[in-house]
């Protein structure tokens, strides 16, 4: 929220400054960035280096006890690339991310548009509800959802049965991974909507009213106004929100892990879970690291595409 809110006014201000003639003292920004870069390098770069190094080593319990791994080159990568389960997990993770990001963005935007049209009281009520959802820690939220869909005593099964949606007594939501992932997606989207909704709402309040009125006078309907006026103006916000959502949803771990009692079966493995199981359950730290490195690489590709697009369209210059 804080990030996105300050992002928007910055966007327009920075553009003005750069298009002006004062491009002097070009080195000053780099000097100012240096301390932050050094800290990021220390807390992110070094562990990342260790992670990559670990992925080239055979590092099991035996090596852990001796605190010394054996170099195996690309052995770990060869192993995971020849493992059909790995490719299943990659595909599952990509589909899972796509579904979650799409749902989060669409529903979040819809709620933002709703807030913009509400009266003061209802707006306050809805915003408060969103902030409360946002403030709920993930572990607490997942456990509450887990109780709600409990096999034996869950309120979901009870309610659905009472409402005559069928016999949901002893309905096991996690027997099929499709319905299981449905529940997990619900938890994730539920938790991610507030950020998107509030940020988009903040963006909406920046759309000049006269543009909308002009479009309406020209005979544009609500959908056209949204598509032709609001959407292009808010594009930078949508791009940032979408890339953040992709980054978050791609590495979902807690929701699956806690929901399935810390022992998810293989048809619930996402890349993050797979890497964790290989590393910490089976003590194949090298293999687990290789999976994590592939994950990081995939994330980097996704992020690069977005950064490139942002720079190319010049929206955030």
């Amino acid at each position: 929220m804080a990030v996105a809110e300050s992002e928007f006014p910055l966007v327009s201000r920075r553009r003005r400054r750069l298009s002006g003639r004062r491009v002097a003292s070009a080195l000053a920004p780099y000097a100012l960035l240096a301390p932050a870069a050094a800290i990021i390098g220390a807390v992110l770069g070094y562990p990342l280096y260790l992670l990559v190094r670990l992925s080239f080593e055979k590092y099991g319990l035996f090596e852990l006890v001796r605190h010394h791994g054996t170099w195996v080159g690309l052995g770990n990568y060869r192993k995971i690339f020849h493992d059909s389960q790995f490719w299943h997990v990659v595909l599952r993770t990509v589909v899972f991310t796509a579904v979650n990001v799409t749902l989060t963005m669409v529903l979040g935007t819809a709620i933002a548009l709703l807030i913009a049209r509400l009266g003061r009281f209802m707006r306050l009520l809805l915003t408060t509800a969103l902030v409360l959802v946002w403030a709920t820690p993930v572990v607490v939220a997942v456990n509450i959802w887990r109780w709600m869909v409990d096999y034996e005593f869950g309120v979901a099964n009870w309610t659905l049965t009472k409402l005559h949606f069928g016999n949901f007594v002893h309905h096991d939501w996690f027997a099929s991974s499709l319905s299981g992932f449905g529940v997990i997606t619900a938890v994730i989207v539920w938790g991610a909507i507030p950020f998107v909704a509030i940020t988009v709402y903040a963006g909406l309040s920046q759309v000049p009213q006269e543009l909308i009125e002009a479009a309406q006078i020209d005979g544009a309907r609500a959908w056209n106004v949204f598509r032709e006026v609001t959407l292009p103006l808010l594009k930078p916000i949508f791009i940032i929100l979408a890339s953040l959502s992709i980054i978050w949803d791609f590495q979902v771990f807690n929701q699956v892990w806690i929901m399935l009692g810390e022992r998810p079966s293989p048809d619930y493995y996402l890349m993050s879970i797979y890497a964790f199981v290989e590393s910490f359950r089976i003590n194949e730290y090298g293999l687990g690291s290789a999976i994590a490195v592939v994950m990081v690489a995939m994330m980097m590709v996704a992020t690069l595409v977005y950064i490139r697009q942002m720079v190319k369209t010049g929206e955030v210059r």
Partner: protein
Amino acid sequence: MKARIIVAALLAVALSAAASTASGSVSSSKADSITVWLMGDAQSGWPNVVAEANAAFRAKHPGVDVKVQYQTWGDHLTKFDASIAGGDTPDVLEFGNSEMTKYMASGALKQLKAANFPNSKTWLQGLKASCTYNGKLFGVPYYAGARAVIYRKDQYKSAGIKGTPKSQTEFLSAGKKLMKKFGKNDPNFSAFYFAGKNWYASLAYVYDYGGQIATRKNGKWVGTLEKPNAIKGLNAVKNVVGTLSRASRTTDEAHPQQALVFAKGHVASFIGNGWEWPYALNKDSGNPDLANVVGAYPMPSHVQGKLMPEFLGGSDLAIPAQSKNASLAADWIKAFTSTSAETGLAKVGNIPNTTKLANVNKDNPQLAPFAKAASSSWFVPTAPNWVNVENADVLQNMLVQIYTGKKSVISAAKSADKQIQNILNG
């Protein structure tokens, strides 16, 4: 997630420098405390035994504090691995008997001398074997346990069941009577509550029909769950679970705690350890009113009059190689496995670590069936990597596939065999 991996990588490698220098210095006399990791079972089941051992230890070592930290089965090994990486391991650690081999093989545990520990000449053979690798001892047997059927005598009686079942056929027909009598109007009722991931009880059927999980052939491990005898067992247990249990097919026997589900009154029987019984009757979390109507009997075999082999579960105590207080740790283990401590363990439903105490519960109708159940037992393949099969939930996942009908018995068994082979030979 990324952060977790990175943190672990950091722990594993960056701290190793600090650890290797630290483990060089041994100072057993100056320590002012030792750290003991026990499973939560001790906390809920026999806290008095722990307290007595601590008192006995402190009497011998005044000024040395014992920090007992209770762990859960789900993640205690992950935590131990992290402590190895960080170079700050506990001084005493409880292992499940099937978890020992990998740690003994990788040199994570200190070698011990049997003669230094109480009753070592009469230790249970099965437990002692789980503490031994290449002829060397790395652990001290703590206690054992075998599961038996814990049941509601009143419900059995009112369903018209005479005596206790003496074969699987009788067991199944008794269960059907119960389902008919109580299950019709109560959608939560289970004649035999059986969580889908309860692999100890499920695999007992495999061994009952003469099957096994894996065997060693020409120096390689071969998964044998797809062999005809094992399949017979899996089919039998699938039938029992499908007919008699309404428990979730995707959770294990501890989530929710089956003894507490039993205490709620919608369950006529379940298969559990001796210590789960008092758990069901606990006045805070269970139902003390059941005290007079609960009984136990060993699970019958599919062969009339024989007993089904039950998993010989148990725990061992070990001292991590990196412990700086090994001699204090050994003294604590001595106090905790003394004859009086083991008698205390037996009285709450465990099988003590020494044959000397085999008859403690002979006249206790509640606990005698568990000792009897232990007379016929099975154990997991003794491969160094076995615990990885457990940690990867290979068997649980196979059972979920079978009980939910997601896969046929044979195809679930085949894919489990493949995974087991990969892990054991890996």
